[in-house]
């Protein structure tokens, strides 16, 4: 009987961590990563969905032992939790209404526009700092943001690259366009997180992450979910 590790993920981010509607189980890149890392650690993962706002409190109060979610490593968060080595990196993507064919390249091209962003992503703070947007609107979920772009209440929306790509690829929403000329400027570094000060655990997790990077398991996972390296 292996010991159990309780893993938390916010199941609202395709393709990283989300609900498989058919099986009613959590699926996605970071769910597979959690399983792979657990295997290396010799423990059984018990993965549960935790709302984004309570991820850190859940870790702090030992409701979970590890965060394996689309949870970016930032200096502010590093004050509250200990992050592992970076597992994967992606950048932001820009969405606009389908009939807006402007070749946006950067923030300056969006001056005077209403811009939307998903709450909880690491783009919120940097975008708040940008001068010149007409308005910055915050959305609970990416699908609400996409809906508002389609309704043209927002001129452009920022989201996580792989999330947006997956959504545009799979969803029925034919009314938005991924701006391929846009040059991403904010790298999001996804890492696992453990309780602050648990250095022993952190070392083990780091070793496991290194292992799955090296033996190709991580690459397989990314390929399975169509996330570019």
């Amino acid at each position, binding site marked *: 009987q292996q010991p159990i590790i309780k893993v938390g993920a916010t199941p609202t981010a395709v393709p990283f961590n989300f609900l498989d509607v058919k099986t009613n189980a959590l699926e996605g890149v970071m769910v597979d990563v959690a399983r792979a890392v657990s295997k290396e650690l010799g423990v059984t993962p018990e993965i549960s969905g935790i709302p984004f706002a309570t991820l850190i409190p859940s870790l702090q109060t030992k409701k979970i032992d590890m965060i394996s979610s689309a949870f970016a490593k930032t200096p502010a968060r590093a004050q509250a939790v200990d992050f592992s080595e970076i597992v994967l990196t992606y950048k932001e993507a820009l969405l606009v209404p389908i009939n807006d064919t402007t070749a946006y390249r950067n923030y300056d091209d969006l001056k005077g526009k209403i811009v939307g962003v998903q*709450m909880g992503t690491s783009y*919120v703070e940097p975008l708040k700092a940008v001068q010149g947007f007409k308005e910055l609107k915050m959305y609970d979920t990416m699908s609400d943001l996409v809906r508002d772009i389609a309704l043209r209440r927002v001129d452009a929306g920022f989201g996580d690259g792989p999330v947006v790509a997956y959504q545009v690829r799979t969803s029925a929403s034919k009314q938005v366009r991924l701006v391929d000329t846009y040059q991403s400027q904010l790298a999001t570094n996804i890492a696992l997180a453990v309780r602050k000060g648990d250095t022993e655990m952190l070392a083990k997790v780091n070793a496991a992450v290194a292992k799955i990077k090296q033996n190709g398991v991580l690459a397989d996972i990314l390929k399975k979910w169509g996330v570019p390296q």
Partner: protein
Amino acid sequence: MFDTFLSDAGEYLPVLMQGVLTTVAITIAALLIATFLGLFWALLRVSGIRPLSHASRILTNTIRGVPIIVVLFYMYFVLPELGVSLNAFQAGALGLGIAYSSYMAEVFRAGIDAVDAGQYEAAQSLGMSRALLMRRVILPQAFKIALPPYGNNLVMMLKDSSQTAVITVVELSMQSKLIAAATFKSATIFTLVALIYLVMSLPMMYGVGKLERSLGSRK
């Protein structure tokens, strides 16, 4: 511990206060809508005209059964498909107002029902029309009876205004979520927000209680 709380509070309060303004504004707007619409439903309900009172009952019960968040979602995201595009604040106030109008309707109806039947007769016997009778005789008394549950609803509505965050209204709870997401001091921020809501609702409860007593003294 308490020191950090105070210094954190000092830091976040100015940002939160912007949310407070929106919360207050949307609560007041929704309150006006809920009150007038609720009164309208209640008047239909007691109109004595069968189809109208049935329609009112079915409609308000349906609205009561639907989560506010869904009403808000429809107001903001689905209504535009029917050609009515509201901004987030308008959709929030209208959605919250419509959702609460169903509770207000119950409250007013109960108040109207509680007015003594003799009052109707006395007013009729003076030759009053139904509208005059309602306006001058029944409603003033019904309001008094309805005041305590109305106050209850008012406080609930203040807090439910937080649901408009879903449709991108940047009110108090949204503002606090943003800060929490940025700083991860959820406990501090939740406590702060609880205090702010409390500070907003206590005067409401006090005011309603006071109004209740002052109306009561004439009875």
